[in-house]
């Protein structure tokens, strides 16, 4: 039982970092509400990343709590209704830069291990 719980935690942990980055990157285009963000990520990755709302909303609230995004209720231009819009803060922008470079390093490092021949070419 306890080992299962550990596994679950690891999966969330892996996604969490990337999900945060993806959300921040999406918000770089401008304010968006939860549904839009989810849809955007899903569409941009050609539906490769099926957005789990179960992790999206906790992630949004986590980002807000850390001060990387702020939220406000605003009327959507195309619908005559209010949605909760998230927008990037300066702190969030800096975080995005940091996470991006971290991710890059990580990807490069992984690549070096996985495809050493490509490196030599």
């Amino acid at each position, binding site marked *: *039982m306890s080992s299962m719980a550990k596994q679950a935690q690891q999966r969330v942990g892996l996604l969490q970092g990337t999900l945060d980055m993806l959300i921040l990157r999406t918000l770089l285009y401008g304010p968006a509400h939860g549904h839009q963000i989810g849809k955007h990520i899903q569409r941009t990755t050609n539906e490769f990343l099926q957005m789990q*709302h179960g992790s999206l*909303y906790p992630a949004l*609230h*986590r980002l807000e709590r850390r001060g990387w995004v702020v939220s406000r209720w605003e009327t959507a231009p195309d619908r005559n209704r209010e949605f*909760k819009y998230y927008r990037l803060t300066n702190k969030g922008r800096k975080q995005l830069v940091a996470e991006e470079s971290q991710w890059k390093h990580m990807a490069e490092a992984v690549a070096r291990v996985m495809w050493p021949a490509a490196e030599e070419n």
Partner: protein
Amino acid sequence: MNWWQFKKRDADLERELRSDLELEEEEQRESGISEGEARYAALRAFGNPTVIREQTRAIWSWNWLESLSRDLRFSLRTLRRTPGFTVIAILVMALGIGANVSLFTVVRGVLLTPLPFHDPDRLVMLYEAGLLGDDSTGSNVVSGGMYAEWKNQNRSYSSLALAKGIRVGLSGSGGQLPEKLNSALFSWDMLRTLGVQPALGRDFTLADDSPGANGTVLLSWGLWKRRFGANPGILNQTIFLDAQPYTVIGVMPKWFDFPDSSTQLWTPVYQENPEDVMTSFSNHQFRVVGRLKPGISASQGVADLSLISERVHNEHLNDPFVFRSASSRPLLEHLVGEIKKPLYLLLEATFCLLLIACLNVANLQVARAAARRKELAIRTALGGSWLRLIGERLMECLLLSASGGALGLLLAFAALHWLTQTRSDMSRVESIHIDGVVAAFTVGVIALCALFSGLIAAFSISDKRILSALHDGSRSGSGGSARASLRKVLLALEVGLTVILLIGAGLLLKSYERLRSADMGCITQDVITMHLGIPDARYATPAQRANFYDTLLDRVRALPGVDAAGFATVVPGQGYQMDWTFSIVEHPPLPQGSGQFALSRWADPKYFHAMGIPILRGRTFDAGKRLDAANEVIISQSFANQYFPGEEPLGRHLRGNGRNAAVIVGIVGDTRYEIGEAPRPVQYYPLDAGVENVGTLVIRSSHDLEQFALPVQRIVSEMDRDLPVSDVLTMNQLLGKSILDQSFNTALLVAFATVSLVLAAVGLFGVMSYIATQRTTEIGIRVALGAKRDQVMRNMLLDGMRPAVFGLVVGLAASLEAGQLLRDLLYEIKPLDPAVYAAVAATLLAVAAFACIVPAWRASRLDPMQALRAE
């Protein structure tokens, strides 16, 4: 974030999810899906909004509190469902925690709180020490002469002060009766040495404390309130103590109770005492308090004083009763030295009791966990985490110990109130009170109990057994045996601890019995004693004193119902009180530097008859010889044995303490000056010499003893209006008072042991009943297959007795060690008293068997058909 903010955020989240979900639904509809389908499609794409809400909410850190309150609600519900268990567990905890908190409060107040004096760590009690006569001692009261030498010559103490407890008669005034009070003589600088100021008025001055000065007195707060109505106008008024005028110069603070809590007055010592007492080196009777100079250690101080003593000793080589060294103890230790050991012992006992209480609650919890194993297994299977289950267990135990602790605190309040009322004689009893530290201690104990019992219970639910629990739940042949074995271990521990307590209690009880039945050497039934003192001021000459005694005794003997009456300065059981040096005229002089002393008493001729002290040889005093003509002495049996070995003592002469030689006219039986102390040699001098002015009147009668108090009081007040009669006690009460400590300790320990025995029995009964229920099916099958019922019963009994026997063995072994702690508190028995050990073992086995026999019997009476159908 506070509660309403949290609420607002929750509503906000719900709105966010709803609006996003609606949007999803609209989009689904826009993509051409029918109205009804769109909702489900949206939900499918979106996920369960409630779960999302839960997960998102967890981000806002209030979650732990929520889960805590859920645990709390759940635990409360569980506990409410089993009120029997809950009430028992709370009571058990309340007993354990209450006992611990009270004892801790007492230990803290009496032993750990610093004395309420200025810089109390530098205060020491000083004693004379070393060889004296044929004896040697580590701490003896100090002579006035030595004190003066110490005071003048030492370089280690910033001040040395003198104290002595006495009793004085306060004359009646304004319609109030005369009364006898405990008082203390202080040197003028005692309060300065302690660093204490009177609450009202002024301290003694050097001028007050010199021979020939006018009498001055400080009142205790209590006496001032009780006797003088707390009237500040009492300052500079005159009161009469032992018929002498004293000017009230001040009132001490309420808390001040030096040298002991019964002291109600203080007067200056040099003003009061004759000069020869204050300059003598061989008349030891004072307590000396010193304040060490900064930077000087206690041992340096003692070395300094010892040097002075040594020099004085060498200057008085012809006097064998001059000490040659000094010793000291911290003042606090002097004041509480005697109760330190019993208090710590009782604290240990209460700790044992608490441990037993925790084990018992844990045991009950394990049993409940066993009964709820299917519920727990299902919850685990459904994804309830193990931590949650442990959390719930801990929460239950915390609830139990917190309620128990609250109740225990009430118990402690009551117990401490009772203690301070009944044991006002205990030193520093006034500093016992429940304060912040005690409250913190209580909280700590509660947390510890919860953790201890909770963890034991929690670890009995191991996740590995979940599946097997679900398996063997359907047909339990030997189900839950592992849990039962955990309970057996707990039980064995409990029984072991109980045995230790029982042995301790048994030893103290036996020792107390020995004490109570110790032969005092005199009659203890049908005798009443009354304390009486005649002031020097009004009875200045020996003739006046002798006349007073004669008249008093004549009139008392004439009272109807009085079988016999007598008067002595000190009666058996009243303590050591006084000794006198003596020499035997017919013996060659002792070598220089050695001397003899023995307890000294003054008695009237009929005292021995009244007290039932047998006259073994010779006769009692000649009633016709009075005053200077009263030149007789009576010695006790052990006096004769020690100082006249193989010799006829009758007719020999004793020269006591510089008096004229007296002829030995009789030998009487030995008596004990204190219960629990071996008899010592005693020399009795005739009361009719008129030397002594305080003593105890004894009346023997086969009638109701208490009825003599009033007539005697009337006789005394007719003889002298200002004379108080005090301490009206039957001989039994007097002796009981002198062993109050022992009876108190014994009673407490016996109570603790009894409670723990009951707890252990309850535990055994619970385990046995549980095992019996567990094995219902098995027993049913056995009986169905032809097992004999008495065989089943024997099996069950053995099963239950095993942990008891195991615990008994462990407990007995541990008691061998623990009993040594009691060594100093025992009278005439060894810590390894076999009778006590045997009695405890027998009691425990009997109780254990009794606790096991009901469930075992019930199991053996099982109807096999019913047993097999039970599942």
